[in-house]
């Protein structure tokens, strides 16, 4: 070997994935300091296999199909040996031997050998006139043979099969497709999509035979040439040639030959770095069995693996953990796309379908019971694919039926606030369209129906709300409204103010840092010292007051703010619910939720809740968080109710606060025959540890005692699932309007490790999240996402974990029950009256009527006497 100081990397296989790997190496400068040798079986460098058919359909030459930029190999000093496949690997001596006898020593070996076409073992499969469809050489052979026959059949109606059919059609043959499954492209599309596809394909003159198998290739005894196919339905299909396109298999023979582990059904076993059990050998692309247990036959995941392996070789972090199999392609001129859960396998999911047999257009969306877009199939018109696929896993902003209707039907594809059409109703309560909102902001081209553009020139959500009434009723569209207003302003060149409100130019996270760094104990001090010019010394507003109150509460023990949220100045900052330590309901009455840690409660305590509810006439309902909500309390009843509850050992459940709500649990190992850990104990420990913790938004948690996940931990801000070895911690889950499955943060943790990680995670979230930003949104928003959070809280990449833990320790040590602390304080108690001048008089507007044996708010007839004509 030439140079002993220089390392050698050998790449076996030069297909699309191999070439991408070389480019990724070059990008990272690896080729400059490493000898790179490539062994390629085919007689030409890597070419675009995906567009092989264009050789026939568009007259593209093999040379034009190349994916290697001219001069690439020379520029990077890469030694490429074409037509000389590797035949043997000696891992002990670290050498690769090629067919020519060339033997190269390696420090790193990368296998990118791709796959080979699977040919079913039918009699006659090797006759003259039988082909596979994989390489340019296959294609040239098919072309040569086709010149002497009038018809051909493709075995396999999948993705590649239809490509091959396109090729035969392009050669002028009478073309048949024989597919064993009941429809074309059975992996990607459903029955309806298969039907639409079939009509389209047949319209092109290709004959489709589905639900039949190939039993034998019939051969002329004299010439040895193909004469046709015997099919499983007893029929005989006379054709002059047969192309097998019944799937591919990984080419893992080199790996087998040198003792590397391969999967049961083939594929070289690799880890998330695409590394085999031998640390100096990698496998990428179709020959690899990825860490998620799958062999990927698509080029996009192959590219991802190439990037991952190159990163690893270059000493950078990278992982390939799996890819989705969404596909969009043009087959025989027919557009086909499938994405996500295209077959609707999720429990309780529903289809929203548009099918036009006449024009061969088929669109199906799979939607979860809660409206989440789970996947879909598009045939004939795939225009919306680029918008639909990114939305998978979220609830689209418009009804799914609007997403499948053709543009001409008056409801064009409309996704994401910026993709919404002007006529889309953003605020359904007040029937305000996007066009009207754009017109209010004054953006250009706000649409004919929306009135003249630029007539209002609003520059904030508040102004748009006032101008259009959008977002003034249920408020659920306010977030979309904000995004629309920002987008309009940005488009108009107006600098968008990221500040919290008109009184602070900082974001919530920035204010948190200021309060923590400067130990600011009060809102006034923060506003007067760090508010916007002109806001200092003023009142502030209903946005910044509770946000700052939350920061002060989170940091109270550290910055010297009062620990009780109703102490001193803090009392005036709290949202109404926090101010009365209860949840205001629609008629001005309040509801009461005592904490029931982990959902575990004694019969005695249950009886106390029942007695309190009975004595005060409260409506009683079990919550989703395994506790009990008592509705219909008047303000002046709250202390009396809580005196009873505190006396029985209950504490505040913080249902009113942006704080830890509940930690649900399943019954766990103690009772359940499947349980592997004591989930109830852990849930109680976690709930007691984090009770009272104020955060940017509410926090929910759950602990499941085994992988059956009965506590639904993966839909929580932090969820814990027991394993045989400890606990898995999931973060960033959410239910509600935009459900999100939680991400696994760390595995097999001990009790202490789990608590330490949750401490860090929660404090990092509290420190960096925006106002009213749930962990699910935060995790999606922060740069680097989950990986960054993992780096920070698991690997301490910012060196702040000690501080995060100390902050949490201070919170835990400083916790006091808010209701006990209120009952002890006459001044705080004095606020719990309906009327300051008539403490004993209940508010006469709070009235109830009976329903199903309990109470409900009396429907309020809006009193016109309270409205003053302006």
């Amino acid at each position, binding site marked *: 070997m030439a140079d002993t100081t220089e390392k050698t990397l050998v790449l076996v296989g030069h297909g699309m994935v191999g070439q991408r790997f070389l480019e990724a190496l070059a990008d990272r400068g690896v080729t400059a300091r490493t000898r790179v040798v490539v062994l390629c079986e085919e007689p030409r460098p890597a070419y675009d296999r995906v567009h092989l058919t264009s050789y026939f359909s568009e007259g593209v030459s093999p040379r034009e199909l190349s994916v290697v930029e001219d001069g690439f190999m020379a520029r990077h000093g890469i030694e490429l040996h074409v037509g000389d496949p590797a035949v043997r690997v000696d891992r002990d001596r670290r050498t690769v031997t090629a067919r020519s006898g060339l033997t190269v020593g390696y420090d790193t070996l990368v296998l990118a050998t791709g796959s080979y076409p699977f040919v079913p073992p039918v009699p006659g499969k090797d006759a003259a006139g039988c082909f596979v469809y994989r390489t340019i050489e296959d294609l040239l052979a098919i072309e040569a043979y086709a010149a002497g026959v009038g018809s051909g059949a493709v075995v396999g109606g999948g993705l590649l099969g239809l490509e091959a059919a396109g090729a035969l059609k392009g050669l002028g043959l009478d073309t048949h497709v024989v597919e064993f499954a009941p429809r074309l492209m059975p992996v990607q599309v459903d029955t309806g999509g298969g039907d639409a596809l079939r009509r389209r394909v047949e319209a092109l003159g290709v004959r489709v035979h589905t639900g039949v198998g190939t039993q034998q290739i019939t051969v002329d005894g004299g010439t040895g040439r193909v004469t046709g196919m015997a099919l499983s339905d007893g029929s005989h299909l006379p054709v002059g040639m047969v192309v097998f396109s019944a799937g591919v298999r990984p080419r893992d023979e080199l790996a087998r030959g040198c003792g590397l582990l391969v999967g049961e059904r083939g594929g070289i076993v690799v880890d998330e770095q695409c590394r085999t059990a031998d640390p100096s050998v990698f496998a990428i692309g179709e020959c690899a069995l990825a860490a998620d247990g799958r062999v990927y036959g698509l080029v996009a995941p192959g590219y991802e693996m190439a990037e991952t392996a190159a990163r690893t070789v270059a000493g950078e972090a990278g992982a390939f953990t799996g890819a989705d199999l969404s596909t969009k392609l043009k087959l025989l001129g027919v557009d086909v796309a499938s994405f996500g859960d295209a077959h609707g396998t999720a429990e309780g999911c529903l289809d929203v379908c548009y099918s036009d047999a006449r024009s061969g257009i088929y669109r199906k969306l799979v939607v979860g019971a809660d409206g989440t877009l789970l996947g879909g199939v598009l045939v004939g018109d795939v225009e919306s694919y680029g918008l639909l696929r990114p939305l998978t896993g979220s609830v689209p902003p418009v009804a799914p039926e609007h997403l499948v209707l053709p543009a001409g039907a008056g409801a064009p594809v409309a996704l994401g606030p910026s993709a919404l059409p002007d006529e889309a109703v953003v605020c359904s309560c007040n029937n305000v369209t996007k066009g009207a909102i754009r017109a209010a902001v004054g953006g250009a081209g706000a649409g004919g129906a929306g009135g003249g553009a630029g007539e209002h020139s609003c520059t904030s959500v508040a102004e748009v*709300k006032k101008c259009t009434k959008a977002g*003034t009723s249920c408020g659920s569209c306010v977030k979309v409204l904000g995004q629309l207003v920002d987008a309009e302003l940005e488009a108009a060149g107006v600098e968008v103010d990221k500040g919290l409100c008109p009184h602070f130019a900082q974001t919530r996270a920035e204010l948190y840092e200021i309060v923590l760094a400067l130990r600011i104990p009060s809102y006034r001090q923060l506003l007067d010292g760090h508010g916007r010019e002109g806001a200092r010394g003023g*009142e502030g*507003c209903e946005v910044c007051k509770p946000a700052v109150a939350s920061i002060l509460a989170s940091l109270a023990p550290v910055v010297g703010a009062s620990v009780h949220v109703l102490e001193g100045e803090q009392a005036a900052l709290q949202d109404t619910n926090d101010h009365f330590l209860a949840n205001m309901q629609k008629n001005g009455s309040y509801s009461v939720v005592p904490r029931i840690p982990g959902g575990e409660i004694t019969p005695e305590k249950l009886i106390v809740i029942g007695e309190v509810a009975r004595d005060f006439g409260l409506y009683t309902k079990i919550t989703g968080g395994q506790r009990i909500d008592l509705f219909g309390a008047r303000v002046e009843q709250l202390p009396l109710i809580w005196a*009873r509850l505190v006396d029985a050992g209950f504490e505040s459940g913080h249902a009113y606060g942006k704080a830890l709500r509940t930690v649900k649990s399943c019954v766990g190992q103690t009772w359940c025959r499947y349980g592997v850990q004591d989930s109830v104990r852990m849930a109680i420990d976690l709930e007691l540890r984090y009770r009272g913790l104020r955060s940017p938004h509410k926090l929910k948690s759950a602990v499941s005692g085994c992988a059956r996940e009965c506590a639904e931990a993966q839909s929580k801000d932090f969820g814990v699932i027991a394993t045989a070895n400890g606990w898995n911690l999931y973060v960033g889950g959410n239910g509600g309007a935009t459900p999100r499955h939680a991400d696994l943060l760390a595995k097999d943790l001990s009790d202490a490790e789990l608590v330490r990680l949750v401490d860090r995670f929660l404090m990092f979230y509290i420190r960096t999240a925006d106002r009213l930003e749930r962990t699910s949104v935060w995790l999606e928003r922060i740069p680097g996402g989950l990986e960054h959070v993992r780096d920070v809280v698991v690997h301490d990449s910012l060196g702040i974990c000690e501080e995060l833990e100390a902050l949490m320790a201070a919170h835990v040590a400083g916790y006091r029950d808010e209701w006990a602390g209120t009952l002890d304080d006459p001044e705080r108690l004095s*606020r719990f009256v309906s009327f*300051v001048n008539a403490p004993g008089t209940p508010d006469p*507007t709070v009235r109830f009527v009976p329903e199903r044996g309990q109470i409900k708010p009396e429907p309020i007839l*809006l009193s016109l006497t*309270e409205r003053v004509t302006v």
Partner: protein
Amino acid sequence: MTTMTDLLSPAAAPSVPGTVELHVGGRWLAVCAAEALLPGRGVAALLPDGRQAALFRDRAGRTYAIGNVDPFTGAGVLSHGLVGAVGDRPYVASPLLKQRFDLVDGRCLDDEAVAVATYPVRVR
């Protein structure tokens, strides 16, 4: 059974002198001690004619009184809302659906067609 009076018995001494009075029905009505009004936070008062008023005090010590019933929901809750300001104009945001009402003239800042009553108020 515990009563409100029991709970309230050891009342704290007033820290802000004076009484808040409301002009209603042609006369000044004493409503509460000034110290019951926390800056930025309201209280509700029951008026002799059965109507309700919400009273507020801002940081500068100025007092305001408007109708307590939220015209959008019919609930007597405006006194429970948070006080803010647009420039120098103080307002209260309804705790139910967050519409804002100017504390000086009672107009709803989010719906020009709606307003609540205002009452003259003083501290003596």
